[in-house]
């Protein structure tokens, strides 16, 4: 693997990166690693709280367990402690390019707030990163056009996270949901009509028994009041 370390300045996109950065980019004909960080602690961490080894598979076959998706990771969520060091083994099971991008990280350690693994085809990459201490949910996705949109989206929750991101397969609803036709059969119509009939019957029943019902309601209310009063005392 004739890997080439590229100076940060060579990347137009991350020119703004602070001189403090020790990350950078590792790239060859199989793929690339950007902003890996196995030893720089975020400012809000005094030490690494735990070492988490996770293996993430990416591929079309992992979308089979969902409906209406085409690409996916094998898992959709990882929970870690504040200041955890995550050692990622990223495996691409497809014959095409996939990425694993994590967003929203502190910019002074990860230029543009991003950690990025990319495999140009079937293969494996390993890299680590250290999460800050903040209780937060981080986006994990593949940014190849339409891969996230069609299911390749997941999240890392530090300290339980601050909620779920939208449209994560099997976890959260999309913001802009698709509309599907309802399987509306004769039976469904029959249920609807029956309910309408029952509704009519109920109102008829109420009218002819108005007095009796009223009494019962009064009694129940009185009882409830009594209970509440006793509970208060």
């Amino acid at each position, binding site marked *: 693997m004739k890997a*080439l370390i*590229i100076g940060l300045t*060579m*990347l*137009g*996109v991350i020119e703004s990166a602070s001189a403090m950065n020790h990350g950078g980019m590792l*790239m*060859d*004909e*199989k793929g*690339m690693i950007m902003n890996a960080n196995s030893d720089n602690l975020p400012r809000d961490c005094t030490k690494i709280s735990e070492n988490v080894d996770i293996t993430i598979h990416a*591929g*079309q*076959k992992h979308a089979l367990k969902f*409906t*209406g*998706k*085409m*690409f996916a990771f094998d898992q959709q969520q990882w929970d870690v402690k504040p200041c955890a060091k995550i050692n990622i083994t990223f495996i691409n099971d*497809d*014959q*095409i*390019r996939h990425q694993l991008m994590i967003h929203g990280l502190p910019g002074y350690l990860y230029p*543009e707030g*991003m950690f*990025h693994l*990319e495999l*140009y*085809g079937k293969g494996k990459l390993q890299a680590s990163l250290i999460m800050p201490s903040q209780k937060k949910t981080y986006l994990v996705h593949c*940014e*190849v*056009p*339409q*891969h996230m*949109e*069609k299911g390749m989206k997941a999240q890392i929750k530090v300290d339980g996270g601050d909620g779920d991101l*939208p*449209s994560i397969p099997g976890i959260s609803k*999309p*913001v*802009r*949901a*698709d*509309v*599907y036709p309802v399987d509306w059969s004769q039976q469904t119509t029959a249920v609807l009509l029956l309910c309408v009939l029952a509704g009519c019957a109920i109102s008829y029943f109420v009218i002819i028994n108005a007095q009796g019902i009223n009494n019962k309601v009064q009694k129940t209310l009185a009882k409830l009041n009594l209970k509440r009063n006793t509970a208060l005392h």
Partner: protein
Amino acid sequence: MTKRHLVLLILIIIALAAFAAFFVPGSTQKVGIAPPATVYNRSGETAGMEKPCSNEHPDWRPAQIIEGVTIDAAPSCEPDNPYDIATAVKGTNNVSMATLMQTNLAQDALTLTDDLDNDGDPDVIHMRLEVVELNGASPDGEFLINTFDIAPGIQPGLWVYAPKSRGMALKNFNSVVANPLLRAPSPVIRVEQGDKVYITLENTHYLPHTIHLHGVDHPWLTAKGEDNDGMEEHAVFPGKSHTYEIQPRHAGTMLYHCHVQTAQHFMMGLSGMFIVEENQPDNWLQTFNIGAGQVRHPSVAVTKSYSQEYDLHYQSVDKKLAQIIQNVNDPRLIAQRMNRDYNMTESFENYFMLNGHSFPYTLRDGMIIADENEDIKLHIANLQRSSVALHIHGHKATVTALDGVDQPAGLQVTRDVFDIAPAQRTDVRLQTKNDGLHSYGPGLWMFHDHVPTGTTTDGMEPGGNIAILAYKPLLDEQGMPKMHDELFDQVFNKDYYAKKQAVWGVGDFAQLLGQAGLLAPDYLRIIIFGLVTGLIIGLLVFIMLVFKRKQNQ
């Protein structure tokens, strides 16, 4: 109330109704002596305006040498990235990391090796193509992603082949705009006659696709006995890849396109030009011409007999087809709507593009830019649904080849309208010799499809595939045509193509041909009608009440 009273009342009501009929107010109304005043709907509105040329990379325009590759000057507003060109000539395996970093190409996108015939150029070519969706949907909100505007405010859903890329597909972190490698049309591919060419389709898209090498010499099966013709039954499914193998014996302008659900996938943009160049010594070709247009590193054979070379890719879009991928996200629903609900036989073409852009964006990267006395080679491909009748103002050019086969000298007709049926290619020699036949002299000469739909964008003129054959002295330093400021103010504006502005809304005739305003409501009429109608309703209620009271008694 007596019967007599009742009859009287009813008669009054009828009379009132007849009276009211004369005062019915409407949403439109005939005008009296003075029609409404002209409305200036363009004054002070700048929200939709764009700069005609953003002039993002002036350093890309001059002629330059990168990695030893000579790159011709490109005076246009949006010149091709010279690093893309250098990499397309040398291969991703033969350029420095510094050059590769100036492109969005993956390191295995194009490898050039083995000079099989010992003539100084590589003859084993391995290219990798991905399938990219532009202006696609997102489940995360009401926006499109990896956007590519074909004209101001126009973002139809498109699919393109793209050389294998790396890194971010978006231009930057704060935008949904696709990076410059991901654009329409699918790139023009150039290989040399006799090269051993491997084309790997890596299907990054969520639907099956293939590459069919239309007109390119290729065996029906690969050496391994696998599909090599890209037909529907050998579709490459999402996440899979397939390599097509060719060693073309015949040179010419050919095509490549997807042959899965061909009508729709072709119209979505999965089609491009595939040019086999004559075998010549030391013939390093620009394997990819991203966005078509000017070839900044022409082949040896072209350089011998021409001063410049351009690829013109004509393409059209049916907005109903293009919207399918923007309205839903579930691949099954997209497949259903595209394969079964959509009916190609009842379709229209709404957008017409030259090299991925409609006018006025064609002025940024779709112009032919010439001096006097030039010989320019044009490769013209019709990848629309309908025929193209290409007309170049002020010039008559000569057909040199049809569908990649050279025309014998006696059949090389010189004319000013080139009829090109769908999927046909015409190679043309355009001369700028001011002799009253080939050229009428320097100018900003328009060239466009003369089929009337082709010059419009969803019916809005000027739009479609209109472009300009520009003589250099008539361009400004950003490569934009001079003397067109007024037109630019008008058309580099989304509101124009959203049909919100009068075509002749500014200038001396704005008062006479601008937007006619609305009529002021005729309040006297409205008040009279309202009062009379109220009176009628009141009287009817009165009659009913009286009638009811009588019944109760």
